[in-house]
Each structure stands twice: as C-alpha cells, then as structure tokens.
C-alpha cells in the first residue's frame, strides 16, 4: 500500500465496445502528489481514453487505478469530490451566461450562496472575463470559452486537476494566462495531470512527462531526463518525433 504513488495506474487496457483494437493497452504510470504530469502523444494515441479512465468517466477493460492509495472504482464518490476535470471539448451550456453556467456547476459540487458568487467573481476577474459575466457562452470566442471551461472545474478546489488539451486552439494571451494559472494552482498543492500537443508548453510546465503512442507509454521522466536519454535531441519535440516517428496518424 504505502509504496504506491499518489496516482498509480497498473496495466490498464481499454477496448471500446465494437472496436477491434485496444485504445489503451497494458498502460502503467505513476504520479506523485504535487506533480504536474504531462501526457503527450500523437492523435489517437489514447490520451483522452487514459485521462477519462483516471477521472472515473470510463471503466477500463482490465487493470487497476489507485488514487491516494484507494481503488478508484471502489470509492468513486469519495474520489470524485477531490478531482476536477477539464474536458477536451467545451462542456458548457451555450445558451446560458458565464455566471449561470458557473452557478450551475458550482451547485453541482455542493457550493452555494455568497461563497460561490465570490469564487465566480474572483476567477472571472483573474481570467479577464468579469465584464462578460452576464453574456451568453455562445457569444464567446474560443479562448474565452476555454477559460470558462477551466473555471467550471476548479470552483470546488480539487486536489487533483485533470485537463485534456486545455490550450488547444487558443491565442498566446489565453494560453499564457492558463499556463500561469496552472503554475500557481500547483504551487498551492494541486496535483495536475494534463495532455497536450504543445511540446514547448509541456517542457516548461511539467515536472514529469509520459509519451504515449498506440495506447501505451513509450517513455517517461522529467523533461531533462527525456532529453538526456535521447542525447541527440535539443528539445522535447525532437524527442517526441524520435520516439513516435514521422508517420501520420488517424
């Protein structure tokens, strides 16, 4: 028990119903408390599948997931209270305003009243959206939606935050404020697991990186370790291409 990491994934596999190949195959990884773990891989590598299993959205076909030394599926409700999930697709109601969306998701986490209102104001202020508080989400730009999508997942101060490509398709300004925020959150003790296609961003942000391809981790370590192991590489992108090849993916 005690030698398990904060998040311990043991040999998980996943086959989607009707699919003929494994989306994730015999994948193991471990993440320590307070870490920022980056899951990098080409399209279809199994990042979303892995993160969905970790955040209790998807049941693995085989294997085990332990969070804080307890089996995830035996204690789903307990663990769901301490995790936050930022989905790859914007998961907000387009016809509701930013405030209405955040009120709703806050309530869903059991937060209410002035505490919730203060949090909403605080985060909208932080992400530069306070003047849009009563505007509908369908009037927001992609970057604005991403920011609200993130806020909706942190209102309950999760101990672990899972983010699936939180910076995809947004401008440098939005990206910077999100990365900056994740740094701060991590300093306050939140463990972060995130996926990205952006190598430079991951290299700067993450304390540990797992490179995933065809449903399994093919290399794991701190950015420096990965660069050292593949000594000819100048940056993470070279490592990535070196490991995963140049062939196009589905």
């Amino acid at each position, binding site marked *: 028990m005690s030698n398990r990491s904060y998040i311990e994934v043991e040999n998980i596999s996943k086959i989607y119903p009707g699919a003929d190949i494994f989306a994730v195959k015999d994948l193991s990884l471990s993440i320590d408390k307070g870490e920022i773990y980056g899951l990098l891989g080409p399209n279809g590598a199994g990042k979303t599948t892995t993160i*969905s299993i970790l955040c209790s*959205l*998807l*049941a693995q076909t085989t294997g085990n997931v332990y969070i804080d030394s307890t089996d995830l599926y035996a204690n789903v409700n307990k663990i*769901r209270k301490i995790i936050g999930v930022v*989905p790859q697709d*914007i998961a907000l109601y387009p016809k509701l305003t930013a405030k209405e969306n955040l009120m*709703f*998701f806050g*309530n869903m986490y059991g937060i209410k009243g002035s505490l919730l209102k203060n949090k909403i104001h605080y985060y909208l202020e932080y992400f530069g959206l306070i003047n849009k508080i009563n505007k509908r989400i369908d009037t927001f730009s992609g970057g604005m939606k991403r920011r609200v999508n993130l806020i909706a997942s942190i209102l309950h101060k999760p101990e672990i935050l899972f983010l699936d490509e939180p910076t995809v398709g947004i401008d440098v300004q939005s990206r910077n404020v999100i990365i900056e925020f994740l740094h701060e959150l991590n300093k306050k003790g939140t463990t972060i697991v995130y996926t990205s296609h952006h190598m430079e961003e991951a290299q700067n942000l993450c304390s540990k990186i797992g490179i995933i391809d065809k449903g399994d981790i093919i290399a794991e370590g701190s950015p420096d370790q990965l660069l050292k192991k593949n000594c000819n590489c100048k940056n993470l992108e070279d490592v990535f291409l070196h490991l995963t090849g140049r062939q196009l993916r589905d």
Partner: protein
Amino acid sequence: MILKFFASVRKEAILMLRDKAGLAILFVMPMALILIMTLLQDNTFKALEENKIEILLVNKDSGTLGKAIHKGLTEADFFQITDKLEDDTLTEKSAYKKVASGAYQMAIVIPEGATDYIQQVVTHKINTQLPGLQEPVEEDTKIDLTKGVNVKIFFDPVTKNSFKQSVHSALKEFTSKIEAEMAFNIYGKLFKDMFEIEVQQPESFSSIITFTEEYATNLNSKIIPNSVQHNVPAWTLFAMFFIVIPLAGNIIKERESGNVLRLKTMPGSYTAVLLGKLSIYLIICIIQAALMIAIGVYILPLFGLPSLMLGTNLFALFIIVLAAALAATGFGVAIGSIATSHDQASIFGAVSTVILAALGGIWVPVFIMPEVMQQISILSPLNWALNGFYDIFLRDSGTLDIMPYVIKLMIFCIVSIGVSYFYNKFNRSIS
C-alpha cells in the same frame, strides 16, 4: 441531492425560457390546432350526434291522419320536421321547390280530406262485412274506392335509399295505425248500438312489437363526444406528447456537448440532474394542458362552438393530465437516450408521436374507425389518456374510474425510463 435538483430545475427553466421557437411550437401550435380542428369538425360531429333528416311537412288534412303523421315523425328520433316556413307560404309547390333546390332532403304532402276519405272507406268495408246493420248509403255520397289516399313524397335526388326507406316505413306504420284506430272506433260504435256495450278506447295504438336500436361498440359507450369534447383533449395530448422532441433534443445536446461527461465526473449521481430536467418538462406539459382546456372553456364559445364542460371531477382531470405528462416525458427520455443524434431524435420523435396520435384517435376519433383500427388503437398511450378525458368530460367519471388508464400510462412511463436506463448502462461506455 436537493441542491443539485434545484440547480438543474433552474438551469432547465432558463434554457426553456430562452428557447422562444421551442416555446412557440409547444404552445402556439396546439392552440391553433385546437381552434382549426374543432371548427373544421364541428359539422361532422353534429351530423354524428344528430343524424337527422330534414323534412318539410305540408299537411292539408285537418283530421287525425295529418295529426298522427306529424306527431309520429316528430317523435321518431331521426327526423327534423318543419311545417311552417318563415314567410308562411308552405304549399305543395313551394315544398317541391325547396326540395329541388336542396334546402330540404324531402317533403311530405298529405292531401286534403284524407282522414274523411279513410273514414268513409273503412265504414264502407265494415258495412259490406255486416250487411243490413247500417242504413244503406245514399247513391250520391257513394265513394270511389279505387281512388285511395295519395300521400306525396318529394325526395332530393341525392337522398340515400336507406333514408327513403326509413321514411317510407315510418309513414306506413303511422297510416296503418290510423286505419286500425278508425276500424276500432267504428266497431265500438257498432257494439254500442247493437248491444248497448260501452267499449273502452285503448289509450294509444302503439305497436305491440317494438324495436330498440343501439350502437354496438367496444367503448361500451353510447355517448359520442361533440367536436369540442373530442378535439380539446385530443390536441392537448398531441401537444403534450410533442414535448418528446425538445426533451429528447435537450438530452442529446447535453450529451453531445460533453456536459454530461462533466456532470458524471462530479460526486453524487446524475439522477438528480435528470429529475430536475424532467420536472421542468412535466410542468410545461401541465401548463399546456391547463391552457388548452381553458381555450376549450373560454375561447371556443367565442367562435360559436359549444363550451367545454369539464365535469365535476377536477381532481380526476388533474390526475389524468399528470399521468399523460409523465408518459410523455418518459417517452422523451427513452428517445433521447436511444437516438444517436439530434436529427434522429427530432425525426423519430415527430414520426412516432404522429403515429401514436393517429392510432390513438387524435385525428380520427376511435369510434368512427374501422373495427381493426379500433383494436389497434388500444396500443397507443394517447388513446388511454384520451379515453380518460372522455370519461371525465362525458360520463362525469371520478378518479377511481379512470385508474385503469392512469395505471397504463404510469407503466408506459416506467418502462420508457427503464429502457433508457438499461440502454445507457449497456450501450454507452460511460459508467
């Protein structure tokens, strides 16, 4: 759990109020349908209800025959007798013209002196039966036995044969009654003259053999609703079941947007959220019903239609509305769970609602459907609910009487939700 439920109710209420087009479909469409269909079908239903043949009666006879025919035709349920025109010019000629112009389906002309003539013929016949008992009839008053009484009947050429037949037989019945009555009177007088016996007049000469007719239907109902009593509940139910389209659409949109995924990573079950959603749609259904019924009571009379009589059991009415609303929302959840896209849900929702409505007797009332269709109509939940409404409106049934329908609707709701639960469990990879 409570907080989740109310947050969900609040969210759905806001979404619903912002969806102006959806609200319009849910409320304006059925209001228009009720008004149009009720007006369109008003005459059809009246015909069903009354089914009376309009007859002009020109009675030139002042005796008992004329009176008896008039009385008999009036008392028979299927004739509508007119013996006076507005300008008071009812003659054989004008009657002929009225029928020719199609204003009346038929006219009956009873000739002058018909009663007297029959009286004479009957007397003559009795005299020849019992010769010598009566003073001989003088030559100049001798009657022409071959002449007969000629009651003329003018028919509109489009009149159905069965209608002609029924008029003929009715007339024959009255005239033979009259003949019998006269013969009886003469014999009575005879007995008195000969034996000084006072013969008691029977009070009426009604037939000994009578026929009763009834419509044999599975509804065990002789009560046929009028246009308002049918169309108001029918289109109310149609509108209530139409809610499956926005409801299924809502469920699919939420699923596609990934909001369901987000909700499922949260502690506690998704059920509270779903229940909140259902409550709003349930409330919409009940508001729809209240509005449609109010239209039946207050608006339709403004268009010259009869007002909707609600019966005395408003609680029973509420129960059937609630049961129908639950069945409709349950159906919506099932479609929302099984359909894979918004379009699929809209099409399947619309088509299945229309089919269930047609089968259930919303468009064409069940009691005028062919026998086979009447049997099939029992399968539609809209039919159960509609029968519940009929019972309350037409028979003044109470909550207990409509329970069979309520229970069927509840079972339909539970089965629908069960189907979607198991479908989600086994066919979607979300735990």
